[in-house]
């Protein structure tokens, strides 16, 4: 048994208030104060009880019991992939004895995570399909037999992405090319690079250096595109990771068509990204300024 003590009076009311979300700021402070004096209380059980009430009411409200929309499910699956990839990196790091081995694995994971999250067959032509297929094969090889070194394949992917960017820059008639403005966010002042985008091709790339390395278990960078033709939220441009110093080229993976980009921005979000960002814009590249 735990050190559970039955609650009485005011403490019970405040714990119930916490579980029902009815405490105000001063009541939450009072609760914290009371809890600091208690060995253990019925706090979590109250939250569990509230959630059982929620379940009971949902069971009676058949019209409210709906399936997860496919668009939301797709985002969750992407998020699950990122979460699994993060855990894989974590697991690999914990068993690696040699710094060199750890570095190689991190490099593989970086390329895998970056390219897997960014390359989308539906948005690309033949080369995109090739890259995705090559990536899938490399990923399977990596998972099934860690003694097989897929680094050359991943390097090929990185080279191919760079080549695609160069092709876009040299061929797209409507190319937009904007540098990242100097960031005022602490820790991001050194970030440099640019964005290229073609609306006719719906294709673009970020080029970045100096962005701090992120722990994929804690969060990922997310690109946003402000489209002058849309008057609501910016368009999600996909998530990406920075796991080494140096320059990275990242394909833009917009969830919606972007026809008149007004600005590009990078935020730092939970693994898998978010639908609407509350976070500060770490980097901004305004078009036409």
């Amino acid at each position, binding site marked *: *048994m735990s050190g*559970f003590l039955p609650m009485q009076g005011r403490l019970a009311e405040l714990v119930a208030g916490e579980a029902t979300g009815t405490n105000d700021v001063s009541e939450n402070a009072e609760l914290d104060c009371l809890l600091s004096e208690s060995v253990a209380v019925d706090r979590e059980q109250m939250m*569990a009880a509230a959630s059982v*009430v929620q*379940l009971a009411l949902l069971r009676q409200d*058949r019209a409210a019991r709906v399936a997860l929309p496919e668009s939301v499910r797709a985002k969750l699956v992407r*998020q699950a992939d990122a979460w699994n990839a993060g855990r894989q990196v974590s*697991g690999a790091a914990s068993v690696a004895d040699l710094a060199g081995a750890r570095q190689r694995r991190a490099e593989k994971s970086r390329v895998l995570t970056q390219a897997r999250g960014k390359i989308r067959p539906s948005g690309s032509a033949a080369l995109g399909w090739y890259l995705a297929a090559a990536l899938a094969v490399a990923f399977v090889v990596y998972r099934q037999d860690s003694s097989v070194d897929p680094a050359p394949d991943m390097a090929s992917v990185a080279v191919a992405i760079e080549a695609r960017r160069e092709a876009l820059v040299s061929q797209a008639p409507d190319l937009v090319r904007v540098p990242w403005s100097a960031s005022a966010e602490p820790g991001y002042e050194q970030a440099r690079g640019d964005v290229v985008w073609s609306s006719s091709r719906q294709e673009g790339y970020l080029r970045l250096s100096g962005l701090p390395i992120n722990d994929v278990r804690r969060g990922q960078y997310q690109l946003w595109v402000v489209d002058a033709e849309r008057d609501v939220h910016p368009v999600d441009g996909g998530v990406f990771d920075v796991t080494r110093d140096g320059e990275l080229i990242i394909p833009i993976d917009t969830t919606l068509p972007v026809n008149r980009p007004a600005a590009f921005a990078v935020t730092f979000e939970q693994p898998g990204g978010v639908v609407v960002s509350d976070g500060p814009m770490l980097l901004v590249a305004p078009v036409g300024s």
Partner: protein
Amino acid sequence: MTSQKSILERIAQGDQRAVQECIDTYGGLVWSLARRFLRNGADAEDAVQDIFIDLWNSAARFDPALASETTFVSTISRRRLIDRLRQQTRRPGMDSLDDEEAGEMRLPTVDAPMEAETDVALVERILADMAPENRQILSLSLYEGYSHSEIAEQMSLPLGTVKTRIRRGLISIRERLNISPDSAEEAVNR
């Protein structure tokens, strides 16, 4: 006694397929709770993403001997929904409905994985025995995410009365539920 591992146990053991299985099994339940509680499609979508990340990260804390998986999932969901509601309150005037709303009722209804929950059935009986007004207050607060001031306005009751009835209603239900004291600390120890 079955030896089959639950989804959360398998996630905790590193089974990558279980992570997606968790979405397929509990996605409808979590989404339905979020939509009803937040009454805002965009916020519900964000909340569902927060909830699943939290679920996967918390999977190792789940113990089937202490709480059902559904209770664990819904308790974590509730915490994140309350967090989200607070953010929503700080950002009034956000989109309350979106285009998805119109199509939602055409989606197939799902039998959320909670039919065998004896606690749920017990709470249904307790709610049925409650005075209709008190039941409505609890529903508006715990299920539909209305603030006590909104409920007071809707039901023409003093604020203090609403707050007291919500809290005492939950305390009364908690006292009649057979939730293990250990389960709370172990299963949802945050």
